[in-house]
C-alpha cells in the first residue's frame, strides 16, 4: 500500500483524479451559490479538471514534496540524494533531480512525441497521395494537421533541445548539476501533462485551427480547442522554467577559468536561446490565456463583436512564435559547432563571430514577427521595417554557415554518422535559409503566402535544420550517455535515407506552392497529383527510416562496442569524464585553462580535472528548513 503514498506514477493515479474532483466540486458549489445555470456546465468542469488534474499529477509524481516539507517546517536533510541519479530503468519513471537522468527523460519522451507527430503526418499524407478524399473527413484532416504541428513544435522540437542541453551543458561547464535541480524535474514532468492534454483532445473533437489556433475560427471549435490552449500553456511553463534554470546555470556555475569566451558554442547557443525563451514565451502564454478566456469565460479579447480584435492575437502569437523558430534552431547551431569541430579535428572557425551571431539572431529575432502577417491587413507601414529586419537576420546566419565551412576546410574530416548529419544539415538548412530570404520580400511573399511554398520553407528549416542537428547531437553524445558505440553502418543507412527522402518530401512543395496549391487542404487540383503522390511515398519512407535510428540506439545500448571515455577525442569537459559520467559528475572541480576547440595544437588542453583531494572538508549549508 505504501507505493501509492510514495512519489511514483502510481500515486499520480489517485492524486490527479482527486485534484480534478476537488476542482469540480468547488466549481459546482460556486456556480450553485451564484445561481449560474446550468450548474453542471460540461466545458467549464472539463477545463477546471484538466488544470487541477495537471497540478495533481505533478503533486503525485513528487514535484512538491520537498517544498511542501520545507513550508510545513519539516526536517530536511540537505545531503539527502535519494532522488538523485538512476540505478535502474525504473528510476527514469520517477521524479529525479539528476540533470543526466532528466536529460534522458526529456530526450526519450520528446522523441516518442516526434514519432506520434510523425504518425499524424503519415496519416494525412495518405489522404493527400491521390486527389479526391478517401481516407479522412475534413474534420479529421484538420485535426490531424493541427495535432501534427502542435505536437512537433511544443512537445518535441522546443523541449528536446532542453533535454540535450540538460544532459550536456552542466558537464561542459564543469558543474555538478543544474542550478535548480528540483525545478528542473518539475519542468520535465510538466511535459507529459502538456502532451496528455493535447492528445486527449481527440476525445473532445480535437482542435482544428492548425498549430496557430487563430480566432475567430478557434471560437467555433469543439472543446478540444480549449485543451490546445491549455496544452500550450503547460508546455510553455515547462519551457520558461527550464530556460531560467539554464540562464542561472550558465551564468553562475561555470568552473573556475571558464570565461564567457572559453565556453563551448553549444553553451553560447543555449544562453541565447534561454534568453529568448524567457522573454518570448510569456507572449504565447498570454495569447492562449486570453483566447481561452474568450472561449470559456465569455471575454472579448479577440472576438469580432464586443471590442475584440483578431489581428491582436496574430501579433501576440507571432511575437513568440517567430522567436520560437530560433528557439528551435539556435541550440541546433550550437550542436553543429561541437560536432563539426570534434569530427573535423579543427577549431571552430571564427569562434567569437559564431558566438556573437547567436546573440545577434536572438536580438533581431524579436523584430521580425510580423513577416508572418504581410497579407493580414495589418498597419501597412510596418511591413517594410519588418522586411528589412528579416533580411538582416540572414547575415548572422550566413556567418555561421561560412564558419562551419571554414571549420571543415583543411580539417581531417571523420565521416561518422554524427558528422554526416552535421554536413547534411548545412546543405538542407541553406535551402531553408534562402527560401526564407525570398519570403522576407513583401511582394513575393504576398503572391504565395499560405501556400505549399511556406510549408516547404519551414520544413527545410525545422526538419532540414532542427531535426538534422538533433540527430547529429544524439549520435555525437550517444557513446557518452550509454558508454557504448552505436552501429555506424545502420547510422549511415539512417542518414542517407533521411537525407534523400527528406529532400524528395519537401522540395517538391516549393513547386506546388509556386503553382498555386494552398496549404492545409485535404484535396487539390488535378495538376498537383504526381507531385503529391511523390511527396507521400517519400514521406512514408522518411518515416520508416526513423525506425532504423530507434533500433540502432536501443540495440547498441546493450550490444554496441564499449566506447571508452572519449571515443571522438573531444576536448570539451564532458569527454573528460567516464562514459556514462558518475552520478555527481566531476570528482573535483575542474579548472579551465584554454578555449574549448584547441584541435591541432600539440598537447593543448581545455581544462584540467584534478584528482579528488583525500580529505575534502565538506562545507555544509544550513538548509532553510533547519532549526536555527
Amino acid at each position, binding site marked *: 500500500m505504501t507505493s501509492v503514498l510514495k512519489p511514483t506514477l502510481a500515486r499520480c493515479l489517485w492524486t490527479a483524479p482527486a485534484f480534478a474532483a476537488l476542482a469540480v466540486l468547488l466549481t459546482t458549489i460556486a456556480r450553485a451559490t451564484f445561481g449560474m445555470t446550468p450548474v453542471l456546465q460540461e466545458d467549464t468542469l472539463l477545463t477546471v479538471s484538466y488544470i487541477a488534474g495537471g497540478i495533481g499529477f505533478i503533486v503525485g509524481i513528487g514535484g512538491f514534496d520537498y517544498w511542501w516539507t520545507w513550508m510545513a517546517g519539516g526536517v530536511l536533510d540537505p545531503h539527502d540524494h535519494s532522488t538523485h541519479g538512476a540505478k535502474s530503468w525504473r528510476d527514469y519513471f520517477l521524479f529525479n533531480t539528476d540533470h543526466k537522468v532528466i536529460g534522458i527523460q526529456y530526450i526519450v519522451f520528446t522523441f516518442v512525441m516526434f514519432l506520434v507527430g510523425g504518425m499524424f503526418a503519415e496519416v494525412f499524407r495518405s489522404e493527400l497521395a491521390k486527389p479526391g478524399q478517401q481516407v479522412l473527413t475534413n474534420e479529421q484532416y484538420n485535426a490531424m494537421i493541427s495535432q501534427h504541428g502542435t505536437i512537433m513544435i511544443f512537445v518535441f522540437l522546443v523541449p528536446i533541445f532542453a533535454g540535450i542541453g540538460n544532459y550536456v551543458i552542466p558537464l561542459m561547464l564543469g558543474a555538478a548539476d543544474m542550478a535548480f535541480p528540483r525545478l528542473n524535474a518539475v519542468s520535465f514532468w510538466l511535459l507529459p501533462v502538456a502532451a496528455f492534454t493535447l492528445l486527449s483532445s481527440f476525445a473532445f473533437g480535437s482542435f482544428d485551427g492548425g498549430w496557430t489556433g487563430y480566432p475567430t475560427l478557434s471560437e467555433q471549435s469543439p472543446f478540444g480547442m480549449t485543451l490546445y490552449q491549455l496544452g500550450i500553456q503547460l508546455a510553455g511553463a515547462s519551457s520558461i522554467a527550464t530556460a531560467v534554470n539554464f540562464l542561472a546555470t550558465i551564468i553562475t556555475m561555470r568552473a573556475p577559468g571558464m570565461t564567457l569566451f572559453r565556453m563551448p558554442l553549444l553553451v553560447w547557443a543555449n544562453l541565447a536561446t534561454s534568453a529568448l525563451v524567457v522573454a518570448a514565451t510569456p507572449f504565447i502564454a498570454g495569447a492562449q490565456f486570453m483566447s481561452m478566456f474568450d472561449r470559456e469565460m465569455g471575454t472579448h479579447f479577440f472576438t469580432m463583436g464586443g471590442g475584440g480584435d483578431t489581428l491582436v492575437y496574430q501579433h501576440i502569437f507571432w511575437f513568440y512564435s517567430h522567436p520560437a523558430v530560433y528557439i528551435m534552431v539556435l541550440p541546433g547551431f550550437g550542436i553543429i559547432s561541437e560536432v563539426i569541430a570534434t569530427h573535423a579535428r579543427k577549431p571552430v572557425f571564427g569562434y567569437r563571430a559564431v558566438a556573437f551571431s547567436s546573440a545577434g539572431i536572438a536580438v533581431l529575432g524579436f523584430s521580425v514577427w510580423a513577416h508572418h502577417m504581410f497579407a493580414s*491587413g495589418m498597419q501597412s507601414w510596418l511591413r517594410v521595417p519588418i522586411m528589412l529586419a528579416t*533580411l538582416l537576420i*540572414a547575415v548572422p546566419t550566413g*556567418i555561421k554557415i561560412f564558419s562551419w565551412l571554414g571549420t571543415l576546410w583543411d580539417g581531417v574530416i571523420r565521416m561518422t554518422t554524427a558528422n554526416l548529419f552535421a554536413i547534411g544539415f548545412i546543405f538542407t538548412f541553406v535551402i531553408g535559409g534562402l527560401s526564407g530570404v525570398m519570403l522576407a520580400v513583401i511582394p513575393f511573399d504576398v503572391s504565395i503566402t499560405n501556400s505549399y511554398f511556406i510549408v516547404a520553407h519551414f520544413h527545410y528549416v525545422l526538419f532540414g535544420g532542427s531535426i538534422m542537428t538533433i540527430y547529429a547531437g544524439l549520435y555525437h553524445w550517444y557513446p557518452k550517455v550509454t558508454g557504448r558505440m552505436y552501429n555506424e553502418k545502420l547510422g549511415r543507412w539512417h542518414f542517407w535515407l533521411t537525407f534523400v527522402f527528406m529532400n524528395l518530401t519537401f522540395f517538391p512543395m516549393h513547386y506546388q506552392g509556386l503553382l498555386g496549391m494552398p496549404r492545409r487542404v485535404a484535396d487539390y487540383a488535378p495538376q498537383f497529383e504526381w507531385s503529391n503522390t511523390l511527396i507521400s511515398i517519400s514521406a512514408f519512407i522518411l518515416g520508416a527510416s526513423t525506425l532504423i535510428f530507434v533500433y540502432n540506439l536501443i540495440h547498441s545500448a546493450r550490444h554496441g562496442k564499449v566506447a571508452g571515455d572519449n571515443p571522438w577525442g573531444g576536448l570539451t569537459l564532458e569527454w573528460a569524464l567516464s562514459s556514462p559520467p558518475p552520478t555527481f559528475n566531476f570528482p573535483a572541480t575542474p579548472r579551465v585553462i584554454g578555449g574549448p576547440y584547441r584541435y591541432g595544437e600539440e598537447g593543448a588542453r581545455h581544462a584540467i580535472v584534478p584528482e579528488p583531494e583525500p580529505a575534502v572538508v565538506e562545507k555544509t549549508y544550513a538548509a532553510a528548513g533547519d532549526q536555527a
Partner: protein
Amino acid sequence: MKPIKVLPLTIIGTLVGAIVSAVLIVTVTLPEQASVQAVAIDNLYVYMLGFSGVIFGIVTLFLIVAVFRFRARPNDTREGAPVHGITWLEVVWTIIPFIIVTACAYGGFVVLNDGNVEAQARTSGQVVHIEAYQFGWKYDYLAKNVDLTQQADLVLPVGEAVFFELTTKDVIHSFWVPAWRMQMNATPGQVNTTSTTPSKVGTYEIVCAFLCGVGHTGMNSSIEGSIIPRVRVVTRAEFDTWVAEQKAAAEQQGQTATTQTTDGSVA
C-alpha cells in the same frame, strides 16, 4: 597534395549555382501572368532565385570539395590545422550576404512601389467589395451603378485597375488569385484593401488560402467539381454588354439593390 585555390572554386560555385537557378526557372512553369503586377513579381522571383542559386552553389561546392579532399583515411590520426579564424575572410563573408540582402530589399521595394496602384485604383478603378464567408465569396460591386444579381464569376474588364475591399462574415479567409500573384486576408472586424491590374483576358482560379474551417478545402475553384466562382477577365466592350445584361435582368425581376450570394459552400 596541392592546396586548393579558393577563388577559382568560388567562381565555379557561382556558375554551378547560376545553372541550378536557370534550370529551376526554366522547368518550373509558373501560373499564367494575368496581371501587370504578376510580371514584376515574377521578375523579382527570378532575380532572388538567381542570388539564392549562387549562394547555394558556392556553399554546396565547398562542402563537397571539403568532404572529398579533407576526408580522414582509415586509422588517420592527423589533426586539422590549428586555425582559429581569418579576420579578413570573416569580414568578407559578413559583407557579401549583407550586399545580397540589400539587393533583395531593393528589388522588393521597387516592386512594392511600382505595383502599388492602390491609391489610383481607389479613385479611378473598379471598386469591388468582397465578403468572405464559410464557405464562399459574395461580391458587391459597381456599387453606385448597378447591382449585380445571379452573377457567378467575378467579371472584370481587362487593363483597368481594380480596387478590392475585403471583409468577412465569420473567420479569417484569404482571397488568392495565383494568376494575379495577389493575395489578401479577409480579417474579421476590418476592411482589408488591395489592388491589381488584370492584363489578360481569360478565366482564373480563386483560392481561399487561409484555413477557415471544415469547408476550407472546397473553397478553391481549381478543385474538380468545385462550385466556387472564378475570375473572368473580359474586354471593355464585353464588360459593358455584360453589365447591361445584368441591369436588365435586375429590372426584369423588379428587384432593387440586392446582391446575391454565389454559394460555394460544400455539403
